[in-house]
């Protein structure tokens, strides 16, 4: 099952903090993050890179984004 972290509607820095927490806790190798602002997108890309995970894809879906990240560099 895909693990999805939905941080839509949350304001900075909450989306980043929840993403980092999910990365810390998960036993999965791939995660999906749902966000709804440009700021969250930019911040989460930075946060993911800072913990050495990798961005696989950033998909625009109507008024939100789906970011797919993986543990493998």
């Amino acid at each position, binding site marked *: 099952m895909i693990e999805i972290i939905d941080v839509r509607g949350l304001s900075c*820095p909450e989306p980043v903090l929840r993403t980092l927490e999910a990365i810390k806790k998960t036993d999965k190798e791939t995660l999906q993050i749902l966000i709804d602002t440009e*700021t969250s997108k930019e911040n989460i890309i930075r946060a993911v890179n800072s913990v050495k995970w990798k961005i696989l894809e950033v998909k625009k879906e109507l008024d939100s984004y789906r970011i797919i990240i993986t543990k493998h560099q």
Partner: protein
Amino acid sequence: MEVLKNLEIPSHLNLIQSFEYGADAGIYKLNDNTAIIFSADFFTPVVDDPYTFGQIAVANSLSDIYVCGGKPLLALNLICFPKKGIPREVLEEILKGGLSKMKEAEVLLVGGHSVDDPEPKYGLAVVGIAHPEKIITNKNAKVGDLLYISKPIGLGILITAYKGNLFNKETHLYNKMINTMTQLNNKLAEIMIEIELKCATDITGFGLIGHALEMAIASRKNLIIYTHKVPYFKEAKEFIQMGIIPEGDYQNLSFCKKNAKIHPKVSEENLILLCDAQTSGGFLVSVPPEKREIFEKKTKEKNISIYLIGEIKNSEDECPTVEILP
């Protein structure tokens, strides 16, 4: 501001400064010896300690008067606070904190106004005075002037990180952040008046580069800023790497990229820091070279930290700008 552009704002011969070029205070000449300076500012809490928030809000409001070379005299509290949901003691603490700073600044609190609002806000409307010939604005930067700032930057990022519990009240960082934001800009203003400096601006919501751009345009000169000379909270850079960046900083960054000349060797992280919105920030002061020595001497005597970060050059293009060098 965008919403004001279609309004026909009346002018007057005695009006020395209105809100052109991003000025935060209006200045009106009463007679040959006195001008009144009038300003208001208020915002939502930046920290969870109400007394400290009150102090920061007042230091920030008074700064608008100080940066014009003025002496604040009278203040009115501007208060938004819910009738229900938050204990009244919280508001009392905010006001106590605010009053402590007004006393330090020798400003008289003479009243105020409050509105029932679910989201608390606090600040002041302030009246100050200055000599009409000694007004300081962001229009007077001259070629050859040196640029100084008076507080380290990164406060907006630190506030966001603090709200996300990335550090707490017990840390040295918290104390440094609070001391910086509650520090009045009064002593620096006194020196600026005494040695007759003519050009400064305070660094607040548009970040260092945003306010530097306003100075460049108002003065029709280029501002050169050397990134490596700009003082900052080193923890703020760590938080930038983690993605703890407030939304306003991205707006400032986008404005900066459109309007400033950025050297390719200036990193994105440094640019974000240079664009970080400050709360109760320091001044950006333009100092003629012949006044450099006395400015540095007097600030040192009064224990005010100032940092040389750049200089003023002629604008070669029609549109003056800020050149950001590594």
